[in-house]
């Protein structure tokens, strides 16, 4: 299994591994000081870890490394990145090159998430306001 990390120098200790049936909102003190959290995709069609990732990033303010493990394929990358994952275990051929391109595969996004990308809606609002001003 190869490991791909967007921030290769980030600390990986202490680490926490979470099952996709765990309620991340109940982690409480266990999150304190943690620098790596591994979330799991038992099957790539099981999407519970996407919600866990967004809750960790956006609700709980978790800023350490967030790793996708298990059945992780390159076609999930645009979704994984938008939900806050920045590290990936995958043995799929072509995963590395796909990761390099995944962020620009779609130049437009519609949903506000913790990744900070401006949505089409926000860009339109900005355009209208600049025309109005």
């Amino acid at each position, binding site marked *: 299994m190869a490991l791909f990390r967007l921030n290769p120098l980030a600390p990986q200790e202490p680490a926490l591994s979470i099952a996709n049936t765990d309620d991340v909102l109940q982690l409480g003190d266990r999150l304190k000081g943690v620098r790596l959290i591994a979330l799991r995709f038992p099957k790539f069609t099981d999407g*519970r870890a*996407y*919600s866990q990732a967004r809750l960790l990033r956006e609700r709980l303010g978790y800023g350490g490394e967030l790793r996708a493990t298990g059945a992780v394929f390159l076609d999930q990358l*645009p979704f994984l990145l938008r939900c806050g994952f920045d590290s990936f275990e995958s043995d799929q*051929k072509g995963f590395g090159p796909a990761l390099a391109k995944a962020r620009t595969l779609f130049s437009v996004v519609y949903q*506000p998430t913790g990744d900070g990308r401006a949505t*089409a809606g926000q*860009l339109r609002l900005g355009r*209208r306001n600049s025309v109005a001003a």
Partner: protein
Amino acid sequence: MPDTHFYRYDDYDRALVAERVEQFRDQVQRRLAGELTEEQFKPLRLTNGLYLQLHAYMLRIAIPYGTLSTRQLRHLAAIARKYDRGYGHFTTRQNLQLNWIKLEQAPDAIAMLAEVDMHAIQTSGNVIRNVTADHFAGAAADEIEDPRVWCEIIRQWSTLHPEFSFLPRKFKIAITGSPNDRAAVRVHDIGLRLWANEAGEVGFEVIVGGGLGRTPMIGKTLREFLPKDELLAYLEATLRVYNRYGRRDNIYKARIKILVHEIGVEKMRAEVEAEYAATKDGALKLAPETIEAIARQFAPPPLRPKRTKVPEVEALKLENRAFALWLKSNVAPHRVPGHAIVTASLKPAGAPPGDASAAQMEGVADIADAFSQGEVRVSHEQNLVFPHVAVESLPEVYRALERLGFAEANIGKITDIIACPGLDYCALANARSIPVAQRISNHFAELSRQHDIGDLKIKISGCINACGHHHVGHIGILGVDKNGVELYQLSLGGDVDFGRTALGTILGPAVEADKVVEAVDALVATYLEARQAGERFVDTYRRIGAAPFKERVYGAV
């Protein structure tokens, strides 16, 4: 060509759809090169509308809120000619299905769709599906607000949603803006009903956990009144609860209706409201300018009130009985006096319900350009609708539809049958649906008789997945397989009208294919003898119960 009176893509929408085509092209190439297994490829093709049927791939094209410009409809005809066998099938979810697509050509077909700002994104798979709406939206006399504005807002939010692209199961949303629900909102994963409260504010009733399939359920009210600008925050909260807690151990128990049933609507509400409280007033709250900008694009065409009594129409009514019946069943009131909403019947006697050839699609586009502001709608009852027709043009529209074979005066009648594709196409089916529909349609073809029988909805599914909505048919027909023989189970009393939504009750043992017509005939005869003034079939059934129907049917077959 007239301007469109619904949402027009801007460069953001266009860029996303184009990029999606290229992504899919790459995925198909990797599949053909053996780099993706079928197991890996399947969810990818499904969320691009590509379904593997019995004989070939089927492409399910999204028609958001069932609204099409004539330019789009002509282009669909061209795609059907170029990549399929020159016809298509309009579905109960306001989509168009092409049944004979080749995998290698699918990316090109989808690229051709993108030329007219259309796509097949999320028309299948365990994702938020194409959102459906009242097919009379923006034209109906009884409408509070145009629901399509909200369908478009949801379309954008749900498209490639990063968190909700691998849900436990498919997720269907429908919206109505009228008190007379024509979108069946109580039998969807989420149904939204626009209504005005005592203060005169318009908001949504949010209904959750309805659905048909093998465990039919009527949806329950999750939120009585939701402010409109909080819609996306509330939907995101609901979907998040479903994504986290929906069952994934058994696909037959994975829909949100099972979650709601198992934990109860109170617990579901508590979970959703807690999630919503943590996110509302956040980035998903809709700015008034955003809502206005989209609503402006749905501004109705500038129709001037016209005379409502037109001598030519009155004269034709007297001399042509079929036209008179057509006015009754296929023409609905428009909000602007002197105009009407016309439904073209895709159920001529003996035809497969919902099918249209490329030439017929072009003919419909010609009529819409000449008489309906260049706009066509697809109804969930598998018919096509001209939303804005002047009363004075009705005779011409009728004649043009006659030439296309779409002038049958049977909307809402016994031959306006909903049927799934069934065993003729579908890999899941246990029995054929289309031939059964065709037999009933031929048997009851005589128009005066149909109008005498009155409103009667027959819905046919070829298996318990219930794509033909048999649970909510006044007469529901379900195909089952018994030791290799196709049998049909009858149920009575289903309904999707708002406030009367009900699931049908099974009448008795299933009957053989060649006995279905006799059985339906016996049901109708029972009704005709027992009905009181003004009663529809389903009203009589409710009053007198199943026994007389049962006796007649099982005595007869």
